[in-house]
């Protein structure tokens, strides 16, 4: 039952969104660690870090899913 759902388009979409949310949140946390270490709070770098979080989360998700489909 669960297997059927997770292999449907909707199930895949939810799982994809979940991995994206996880990676995005993880990179946001890494950003907080960088701030805690006292770096990355000045003007150009903090904006770049925000964009890197946004792009990085999507890229990591796509890489992982590409690998997932490739090895299947």
């Amino acid at each position, binding site marked *: 039952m669960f297997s059927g759902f997770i292999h449907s388009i909707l199930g895949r979409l939810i799982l994809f969104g979940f991995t994206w949310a996880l990676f995005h949140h993880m990179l946001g946390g890494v950003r907080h660690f960088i701030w805690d270490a006292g770096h990355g709070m000045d003007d150009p770098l903090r904006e770049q870090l925000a964009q890197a979080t946004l792009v990085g989360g999507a890229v990591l998700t796509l890489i992982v899913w590409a690998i997932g489909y490739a090895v*299947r």
Partner: protein
Amino acid sequence: MSERPSFRTPLGRVRWLGSAHTGADEAMRMRLTSLALAPLTIAFVWIVLSLLSKDYNGVRAELGEPLPALLVLMFVLAGVYHMAIGMRSVIVDYIHGVAREWALTANDLFCGALGLACVYALLRIGFV
């Protein structure tokens, strides 16, 4: 701030405005769980993705292995605790009055139940 010179000490100025008590402790717990979750998240996503191509018995067999089971167990425990304190700080920041108390209680109960359900499921797969 008033423009006139004040004789009040910095401590006297902030006293009774609210207490910090456990704030630093919570922040350190947040960092500790984040640190644990960064590698655990990668491991968890990897394990879940490897389960996608398996059928029911294959999934049970994989999650019954010690290493995947332990990694998912650690991810769940650190993750649920991380989620509980994260949600708690959102509630404390944005909800006020009696609603805050209800929200905090609901948060604790939900996170406790979710964590217990995940641990139960994993142990059942591993040992039953």
